[in-house]
């Protein structure tokens, strides 16, 4: 019995449909962030919009509860630029803040645990907030929260994932809370966010006007 032949057009159509379906129904990390990579092909891409899409991707596709992205400005200070999942009042409080490079590594200000090369964990018990940041989280909620297992997050926990550019220059950071189910992000989710930080770092290496 002769083998069935498959027209090239059919092979192409199957692959194309599978590609489009995966884009609309992400089932793995690269599907979740691939839409962002497609945006980057546009030479006239607006950085602010891209960052907002990145934040939305983290909350919508990676199921992270809250996400913010901050960048280094022309004056050398680091400021929050976009957010997803925060209360409006908390975001307004974030927008008023700025940081120097030294403050990122200051353990007396922000006690952290290094999780990976790019990622630091800040736990509510260590009160990783300085004066002026009180409105960026809900202190009453933090005081009421209790951690019942090693996987549970409570109000006040967060992770920072750093965005690096050429020659180890710190260009910004992604800040995420726990997952929407009240747990810490899995190591895979953390690594996806690190990958996203790399993608943002790539974007920032392109000559662009400053983000507002």
């Amino acid at each position, binding site marked *: 019995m002769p083998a069935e032949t498959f027209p090239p057009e059919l*092979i192409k159509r*199957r692959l194309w449909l*599978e590609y489009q379906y995966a884009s609309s129904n992400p089932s793995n990390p690269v599907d979740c962030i691939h839409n962002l990579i497609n945006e980057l*092909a*546009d030479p006239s891409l607006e950085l602010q919009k891209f960052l907002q899409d990145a934040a939305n991707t983290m909350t919508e596709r990676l199921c992270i509860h809250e996400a913010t992205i901050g960048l280094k400005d022309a004056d050398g200070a680091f400021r929050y630029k976009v957010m997803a999942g925060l209360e409006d009042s908390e975001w307004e409080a974030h927008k008023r803040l700025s940081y120097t490079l030294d403050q990122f590594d200051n353990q007396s200000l922000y006690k952290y645990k290094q999780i990976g090369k790019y990622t630091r964990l800040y736990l509510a018990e260590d009160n990783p907030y300085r004066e002026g940041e009180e409105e960026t989280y809900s202190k009453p909620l933090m005081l009421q929260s*209790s951690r019942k297992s090693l996987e549970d997050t409570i109000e006040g926990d967060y992770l920072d994932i750093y965005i690096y550019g050429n020659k180890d220059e710190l260009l910004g950071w992604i800040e995420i809370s726990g997952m929407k189910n009240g747990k810490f992000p899995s*190591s895979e989710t953390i690594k996806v966010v690190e990958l996203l930080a*790399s993608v943002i770092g790539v974007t920032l290496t392109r000559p662009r006007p400053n983000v507002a």
Partner: protein
Amino acid sequence: MFKKEEILPVVEAGDVARKLKLDYARGVKDQHEKAIEGTNELWERILQPDVEMKTLAKEACEFICKRFGIASTAIALRSPVDLKYRYEAVAGMSDEIVAGFMKLSYTRDELLNSSVYKSHEVSKHSCIFLGEEHPYAPGEEFSYSHPGLMGMKRRSLTDCLEADYIDTFILDASGEIAGYIEISGTRLRKLPDTTTIKWVELIAFMIGAALRLRHHG
């Protein structure tokens, strides 16, 4: 300023942090997590300015072959001197075939010549070339590891033939083609799945950034 005793932890903060760090470093990793780690490591290498493009291209080719089960991978880049595309690195083929690859060069028009290289678009950045349509110019037959298999028939939609390949374009800042990543089928003789194609597109994007950082072209 609140007092630590106002929070009544059931578990110690130190234990929480230790567990997360341990899971991150030594937890069971599936193929996705390994792909993410490898891609992040590639980006770290890209950010080291003393690593040459040829070395990066080679590492990227080897990573794609190893992590995604691709039989062979090649990366070609546009020369800043004559604007022709030449292979910088090949993985998964014999030294003899690789030497042949390195002698090839294409102008932009030759690269996009659909009468010689008939392709089908998979996405904005990737095209598939199918063996039934003889997607190779005369003299390029050496580039196949098993030329004796070239006449085989495709028995299913996911089967890969010896002459099948997928090109993913590497773009420069203005959206022009700065190079391409070329992958053949998988070692199981199947066409790469779309997840693999998307990973290759991500890597192509990073290679594009590497070119910009090194002012290549």
